[in-house]
């Protein structure tokens, strides 16, 4: 189905309009939802940022990362430290857009820089070696605040609270948080979608599909791979920054291994490389703990079971997904869609 005129030709314009529609819908949603639901929406939204970046890294450029939670950690602490140490945020009465955006931008930049370093260090690594290094990253970065020499600066094991900027006027605090996160998520997905269909996206795919051929064709393979890391770290950093604001505090304990694995799960469930898949996946992993808690209360299961059920379900779902739907939800939907199309096409032919 081709859209008329310029809409049909320009992916950028199409994505832009989609983004506007999405923002409109989400704004409407935040109006009607309860405070609790708005918090959930905020959680889903920043998860989308991180999951989208990861799905680009792993699906599009073919590099696995088990450590994007560490980039979230970097972003979160950047935001938290900036908000803590810059008194001009506190003294300004009411709401200040510009500085807050700068703070979030800082989380993106710092996380991107760390991502670049990691990507450069890991540039020659493939497959399980890369997986192992990123796994070590997931465990290794969040312990830094425990380091005695950095304790005073980074708040140590207990972490420290985050003083978020106040919301404007009479807007509900939770609705406002949901707004920010949703706008960030839509923006992130928009930018990534354009990246994916640009020359850079094609370069990612070329390197993923056949490194040697890409290198022979003149592509700077290592640089492209590092760029992919930078992109995914940047989005994870943004997610971390938003998390710091929504959660009101940061501590090393907020960034366990299961966070990184959860992001991977979200990308996998949705279908690696698919941005809409990242959205479904994020919804799934954010709501899953709540659903399983509700379920276990209904079934009156013991505390041990209740606590561990979400993770058990993730783990099981990951295994089942790989064995049964290696292409994730997006792949499944695509198959269903293709089959439906063929049937429609066949009916059309038959009725000629």
């Amino acid at each position, binding site marked *: 189905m081709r859209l008329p005129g310029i809409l049909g030709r320009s992916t950028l314009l199409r994505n832009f309009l989609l983004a506007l529609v999405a923002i409109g819908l989400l704004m409407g949603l935040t109006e009607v939802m309860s405070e609790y639901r708005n918090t959930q929406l905020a959680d889903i939204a920043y998860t989308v940022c991180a999951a989208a970046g990861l799905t680009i890294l*792993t699906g599009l450029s073919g590099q*696995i990362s*088990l450590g994007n939670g560490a980039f979230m950690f970097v972003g979160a602490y950047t935001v938290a430290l900036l908000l803590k140490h810059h008194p001009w945020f506190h003294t300004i009465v009411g709401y200040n857009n510009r500085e807050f955006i700068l703070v979030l931008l800082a989380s993106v930049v710092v996380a991107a820089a760390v991502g670049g370093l990691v990507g450069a*260090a*890991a540039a*020659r*690594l493939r*497959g*399980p*070696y890369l*997986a*192992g*290094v990123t*796994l*070590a*990253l997931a*465990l*290794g*970065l969040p*312990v*830094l605040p*425990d*380091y*005695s*020499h950095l304790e005073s600066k980074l708040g140590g094991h207990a972490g420290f609270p985050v003083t978020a900027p106040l919301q404007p006027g009479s807007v509900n605090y939770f609705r406002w948080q949901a707004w920010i996160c949703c706008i960030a998520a839509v923006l992130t997905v928009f930018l990534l979608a354009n990246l994916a269909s640009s020359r850079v996206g094609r370069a990612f795919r070329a390197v993923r599909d056949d490194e*040697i051929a890409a*290198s*022979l064709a003149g592509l700077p393979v290592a640089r492209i791979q590092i760029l992919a890391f930078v992109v995914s770290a940047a989005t994870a950093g943004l997610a971390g920054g938003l998390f710091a604001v929504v959660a009101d505090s940061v501590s090393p304990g907020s960034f366990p*291994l*299961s966070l990184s*694995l959860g992001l*991977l*799960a979200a990308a*996998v469930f949705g279908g*690696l490389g698919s941005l809409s898949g990242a959205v479904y996946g994020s919804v799934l992993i954010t709501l899953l703990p709540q659903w399983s808690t509700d379920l276990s209360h209904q079934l009156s299961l*013991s505390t*041990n*079971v209740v*606590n*561990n*059920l*979400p*993770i*058990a379900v*993730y*783990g*099981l*779902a*990951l*295994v089942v*997904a*790989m*064995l049964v739907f*290696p292409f994730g939800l997006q792949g499944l939907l695509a198959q269903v869609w293709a089959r439906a199309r063929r049937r429609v096409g066949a009916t059309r032919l038959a009725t000629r």
Partner: protein
Amino acid sequence: MTPVNLIIYGMANGTIYGAVALALVLIWRSTRIVNFAQGGMLMFTTFIAWELVERHHQSYWLGLVVAIAAGLVLGAVVERLLVRPVENGPPLNAVIVTLGLLLALEAVAGMIWGNGLSSYPPEFSLNFYHVGHQVIYLSPNFLFIVIAALAVMVALYLLFQRTSLGLRMRSSAFNPEVARLLGVRVGRMLTLGWALAAGVGALAGVLIAGTEPNYMNPNGFDGLLILGFTAAVIGGLDSPVGAVVGGLVVGVALQLLDNYVSGDIDFFFVFALLVVVLMVRPNGLFSRRSVRRV
């Protein structure tokens, strides 16, 4: 701690890391998969042993034997059911399957035994030996650990290099197609490889659990996986000898860093160590294959 003691203590720990590394290398050589669930598997078998020893007051040795047996079974089952379908597909799928298994095992262990901390009762004393007035950072328990780990390594070496079963397993790993043509049941060899690896891991789990109080926890063995993986990578994923050496390197390096820099950030040191080694030798120290360059 004197440097000598640091090294002794580090090497003692290192033999355990080497055992875990060996398990990972066994699996890698036979199926080209890194078993990220290894930490979860050995955690689970150690908990089973703990249940017997701590709750049902059985002997330490029974616990050890049961753990190893459980490991053998678990390894075989995992390979046959979960890994076989993804063995020949894209490597990412196998990674995700093992990660999913890791999460599932940790969660199920938490459901059965809770998420708190418990201790595994060691069989031997944890008190350090004395030579005259000098303390040597080696306890009877550690000596036992080292001997057990080395014994297992020697046994595996003999199995692989000197028996026809070992020959079958190696040929299945190096060239499954040719092995099949020669009548080797490659599938069975792969299952056996996983079973052995899991058995070795189970041994390592029980050994390390007794070295510190409050070690037992569903998530408590994540570090061991990472340390074992680092050791395996440093030595080269293809090399069993490398796994053992890598274990010693990691054990000593960590001990030195802990002592001279900080004891709080072990995981960060591991990450740094891994990065440094891989930047210099992307395929590990002992690997024979070189990185393909265009």
